[in-house]
């Protein structure tokens, strides 16, 4: 038997989990069907049954530092087999959102991102900032002639502007993640998965990172889910599309400053690579939106946090594509405003990353590394064999 544990229910925490989409959590009667129907759950201390009772009892400390919450890839197998419609998958998603909000630095940003009332302000800030910079540069009214975005928002100020905000964003991420890592460590010493398992072994942080990155690049865990097979493909497309565009951006900046080779011709391999990545993301995100809309009615809840992230991502893709097309067709009156909107949503996507649903990228990676580091992931893998 585990050591005596004094239950201190945090009712506010329960209410917030319910608000974040875990509204079904009180339906659970602990039958543990979910722990078996989950294909990713390990043999020792499987999830999500235990997470469900922690959520019901308001055991915030146990849940926010629980790496298992992040081992779930939300395929929804448990939602289908649940005899009570308690939707463990939705509850874990809500706990993940709560975790992101909880570790937000500064904390008010996490709260603001979660509230629809703040959305105009959150989009207004980058709009005003960009307009201010443009006013400073004196290009608020773009010069006449062919559409050339560099003449609207010059490249160097653009890179300095975004670069400095990205630096702030990275600091925010690091602070949040280090707090998260500390809590993960304290939870493991409290619960220790390896004590009771003979197969599990710990690994160094370095090997943990290698293993986690391999997992993420191949999407192995996604593929194991049975109920939600196509999420594997849609997420894979989105992921590689995003990664591709990220690399393209860096390559183009290097090309411009190091090799002074700019602009690139349309059929330059780098250009083609960027456009293919965009297309992959367009298909991936469209698919995700379609699936979520289809499931919203019955099997799976998509919350405000889900939708704001997805739609902002979608807005980035669409405005990006339109921006590119308008340059070719050379309609200045529409091209510059669209480019402006594009910059605003790019800001919202990237700079708000640590506080939005996008932060799952960071927190899940850290949790996967920790799972290997602590021996949890080994237990998962031995269960699969």
């Amino acid at each position, binding site marked *: 038997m585990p050591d005596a544990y004094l239950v201190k229910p945090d009712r506010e925490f329960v209410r917030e989990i319910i608000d974040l989409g875990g509204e079904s959590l009180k339906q659970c009667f602990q*039958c*543990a069907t979910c*722990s*078996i129907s989950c294909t990713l759950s*390990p043999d020792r*201390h*499987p999830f999500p*049954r235990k997470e469900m009772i922690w959520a019901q009892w308001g055991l915030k400390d146990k849940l926010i530092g629980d790496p298992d919450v992040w081992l779930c890839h939300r395929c929804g197998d448990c939602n289908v087999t649940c*005899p009570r419609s308690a939707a463990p998958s939705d509850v874990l998603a809500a706990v993940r959102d709560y975790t992101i909000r909880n570790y937000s630095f500064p904390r008010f940003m996490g709260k603001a991102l979660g509230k629809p009332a703040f959305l105009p302000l959150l989009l207004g800030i980058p709009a005003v900032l960009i307009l201010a910079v443009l006013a400073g540069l004196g290009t608020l009214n773009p010069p006449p002639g062919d559409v050339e975005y560099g003449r609207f928002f010059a490249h160097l100020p653009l890179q300095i502007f975004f670069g400095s905000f990205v630096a702030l964003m990275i600091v925010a991420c690091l602070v949040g993640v280090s707090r998260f890592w500390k809590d993960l460590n304290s939870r493991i010493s409290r619960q220790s998965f390896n004590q*009771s398992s003979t197969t599990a072994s710990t690994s160094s942080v370095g090997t943990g990172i290698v293993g986690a990155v391999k997992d993420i690049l191949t999407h192995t865990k996604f593929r194991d889910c049975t109920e939600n097979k196509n999420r594997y493909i849609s997420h894979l497309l989105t992921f590689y599309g995003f990664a591709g565009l990220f690399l393209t951006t860096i390559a183009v900046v290097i090309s411009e400053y190091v090799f002074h080779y700019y602009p690139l011709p349309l059929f330059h391999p780098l250009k083609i690579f960027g456009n293919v990545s965009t297309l992959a993301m367009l298909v991936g995100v469209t698919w995700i939106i379609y699936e979520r809309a289809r499931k919203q009615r019955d099997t799976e809840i998509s919350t405000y946090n889900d939708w704001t992230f997805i739609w902002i991502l979608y807005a980035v893709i669409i405005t990006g594509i339109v921006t590119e097309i308008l340059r070719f067709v050379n309609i200045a009156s529409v091209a510059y405003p669209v480019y402006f909107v594009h910059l605003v949503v790019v800001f919202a996507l990237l700079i708000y990353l640590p506080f939005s649903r996008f932060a799952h990228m960071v927190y899940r990676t850290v949790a996967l590394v920790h799972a290997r580091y602590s021996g949890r992931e080994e237990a998962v893998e031995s269960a699969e064999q």
Partner: protein
Amino acid sequence: MSGNGKQGKILVIGGGISGITVAIEAAEAGCSIVLVEKNAYLGGRVAQSNKYFPKLCPPMCGLEISLRRLRANGRIQCHTLAEVEKIVGEPGNYRATIKHYPRHVNENCTACGACVDVCPVERSNVFNYGLDKTKAIYLPFEAVYPQRFVIDGGVCEGTSCSKCVEACQYNAVDLEEKPRTEEVEVGAVVFATGWQPYDAAQIENLGFGQYSNVITNSIMERLAAANGPTEGRITRPSDGKEIDSVAFVQCAGSRDENYLKHCSGVCCLASLKQATYIREQYPETQIFIFYIDVRAPGRLEDFYAARQEDEKLSIVKGKVAKIEEDPATQDLVVEAEDVFGGGRVSQRVNLVVLATGIVPSEVGVDVPNGLIRDEHGFLVAEQNQPGLLVAGCAKRPVDVSACMRDATGTALKALQNCV
């Protein structure tokens, strides 16, 4: 209460333990009764049971006492192989249409069995849930009331065969008997239509109907019964082998929005009881009971506590979510999370017993303004008219003793409505 005419006359639909109890209690109070039973015999699910919990005594014992009271009472008209089709009228003044199905065997029958030997056709034995076969002419079970053979019209070859007619020296067989209808006038009607086991084949992840060594608790009653298909020896259906390990799966399909929403309230005790059947025959067999919650209210908790003394009985908290068969041995691997043990369990066993729940029987009787059911399909106690009453498992899933108490109360209500 003269017993003549519709005044003081009660129609009881269903000849299980509840219907029998309503009939004898009301008859002994002076009413006359028309008891209508769909099967060829009285006793219903009780007749199919091996033992009662918690006293572990045989149901046939109490059933025989009830049937003796029923036979001794001249006010009970008993119709087997009959169904009530329609009821019209109002409290104190009902007219019911009863359809009689042919038994093809009349009261001359002495149950000598000479007909069975010559009968060339076999049928699946419904009484034993299809575990064995009988001839087309058969006695439902040995202590049956009425003590008469019956012919399964669905499989009998009829007059073209007639071997039983020739074999019967009492002129008891009538292959040309036709269905007929009858109308009766009564003051009140009691629905004691009982229950059916939930159809375990509906449950996708538990393998019933797919793996032969996955059985239900109802089937277990027949396997353990001395008058059952194995003469009471509990063995594996697939190969007749002895059992080294068995898993009981509680809430199989029950308390599950995907299948049967309600809790039947008796399956926990039924499994604990059936664990004693196993233990009696196999002192060393490992028994597992996987549960969500054990429902053992009141004095039944003592029975639960007594079973926990059994060292080879493991009571595991965690619902079985998956069952797979090893095709080589036809053993089964049941998977559950052992919640208190802290891990997933994959338990290999010889036999799996699904503790399936109680579903109200379908009631096709046409009554004024229809019958009122609750969300689970059970008939509610308060029907459209005070003369229409409900007793026993037709109303809610309960054990036998609760059925009998409820039936006695319903008999009193029926008296108030028809005198």
